[in-house]
């Protein structure tokens, strides 16, 4: 094994690299003046208050949370039957559906965004606020699909058989065994989709950019007119939300396994 000191040094360097931009943003977010200076001059949390007090920022926050919440639920509703079907049946055609579900995330996002722009325009629905929910629901279906596929794979087939020998029919098995066992994976799929939808820019921008202002769109628009510390405060809020959500997943789920490591529980 490598000695602790060199590896600690490496971790410190990478930690610095990843944290530095966020630290500077955190610094300017608590700046007392409205200027972009670091280290901050004075200390004030008023810019965080501004997110909730300023109707423009607050409505953007509400729009983002609303879109992210409904889109993540939609993504799970689409992903759950696919993952269940692949687990329950031997059906090669369902693999095609699975690949379709994985594709949006692998391709450059601008492609999916442009596809949605063309699609909603052709239907004459361009700019309708709800279209972004469907667009995000499809765009982020990959995340719950991956977590749920892992979740179903983790179910020991003997549990289902045991329930059957005790008299449970298929519906009862789903309700009493399968669902409780994959609930953590549903939650983490929801959480992943929620956080990413919250931060998504290009699809939202192309689909409803001129009618709905989500927070990333709001930040980008604000950047064009110059700097305001509120955008720094929002950025830090988003980092905090992401860290809290992933922290909760790690607390109640098996994050290394979700990320593809063999779980120590498997061995």
């Amino acid at each position, binding site marked *: 094994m490598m000695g602790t000191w060199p590896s600690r040094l490496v971790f410190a360097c990478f930690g610095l690299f990843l944290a530095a931009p966020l630290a500077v943003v955190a610094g300017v977010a608590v700046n007392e003046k409205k200027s972009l200076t670091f280290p901050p001059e004075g200390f004030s949390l008023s810019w965080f208050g501004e997110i909730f007090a300023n109707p423009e920022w607050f409505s953007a926050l509400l729009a983002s949370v609303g879109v992210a919440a409904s889109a993540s639920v939609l993504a799970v509703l689409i992903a759950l039957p696919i993952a269940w079907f692949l687990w329950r049946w031997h059906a090669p055609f369902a693999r095609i559906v699975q690949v379709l579900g994985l594709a949006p995330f692998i391709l450059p996002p601008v492609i999916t965004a442009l596809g949605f722009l063309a699609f909603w325009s052709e239907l004459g629905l361009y700019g309708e606020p709800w279209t972004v929910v469907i667009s995000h629901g499809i765009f982020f279906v990959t995340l719950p699909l991956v977590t749920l596929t892992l979740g179903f794979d983790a179910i020991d087939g003997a549990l289902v058989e045991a329930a059957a020998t005790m008299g449970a029919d298929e519906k009862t098995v789903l309700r009493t065994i399968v669902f409780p066992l994959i609930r953590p994976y549903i939650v983490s799929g929801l959480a992943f989709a929620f956080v990413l939808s919250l931060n998504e820019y290009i699809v939202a*921008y192309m689909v409803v950019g001129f009618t709905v202002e989500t927070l990333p769109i709001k930040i980008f628009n604000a950047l064009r007119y110059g700097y305001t510390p509120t955008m720094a405060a929002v950025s830090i809020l988003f980092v905090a939300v992401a860290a809290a959500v992933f922290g909760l997943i790690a607390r109640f789920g098996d994050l290394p396994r979700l990320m593809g490591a063999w779980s120590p529980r498997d061995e």
Partner: protein
Amino acid sequence: MSKPSPRRLADYAPIAFPAGMLLAFFVVPFGIMIAISFYHRVQGGFYEPAFEFANYERFLTAFFGGVLGFSLGLSSLVAVVAVLLAFPFTWLLVRQRRQVQVIWLVFLLSVLSLSEVIIGFAWSTLFSKTAGITNLFVALGLMDQAVSLYPSFGAVLAGMVYQAFPYTVLVLYPALSRLDPTLVEAARTLGASPFRAFFNVIVPSLRNTILATIIMVFVFALGSYLLPQLLGRPQQWTLSVLITDQAIYQSNMPFASAMAVFLVLVSLGLVGLSLLFGQREKA
């Protein structure tokens, strides 16, 4: 205990909804986009059905060639730098205690999920004249006065590597954490130093994984559209930026679609290639 095949129509019912949704809202939009790429553009931001290759012929211009070349070059550079940084990092990470790994995973996921807008804003702040890193260099006496480090190619590269780094780590994480630890121990007992064991045993045994990861990160970097705008100059715009620009600001959907189709083909080809490399490792 092989799984049964669905028999009755009712067995297929549960997958009808997701299949229908993906068909209607992913496959159909894709098809429309492909169709539009052959349409004829009418001045004033509209287009009419046609079947012409005019939009694809524009690829042959020097301007497009320049943008394409720059996009591919930039993405390759980002991919190589990100993998060079992420591979040793991930290698060390999977060797840490579970608790340490979890903390890092939370941190990496938080950064990965960050909006490109926020990453762009954060780096532009870090590279700014008034709040940027050069103020630190001045304080340390390394520089005479603070300067703005962006817009510049270096700033674009830094931002994109930052964005790609967590992604790269998470792509490498499964392969490295499943690697047989006895492989290294065997090399070490044969007298190899940690560094030599790493370069002579680990790197070659994961050559295909590394290649596949470079390609995955390359495709990921191709998708970057805001960082080049926020941190770079117009000559550092990538294909993704150009597509957005044509679709939204120039209202030239047919040309934007043609470029998107081209980008899909490049991405799919590369993803296919990376799957091929990934497969070979398993065999």
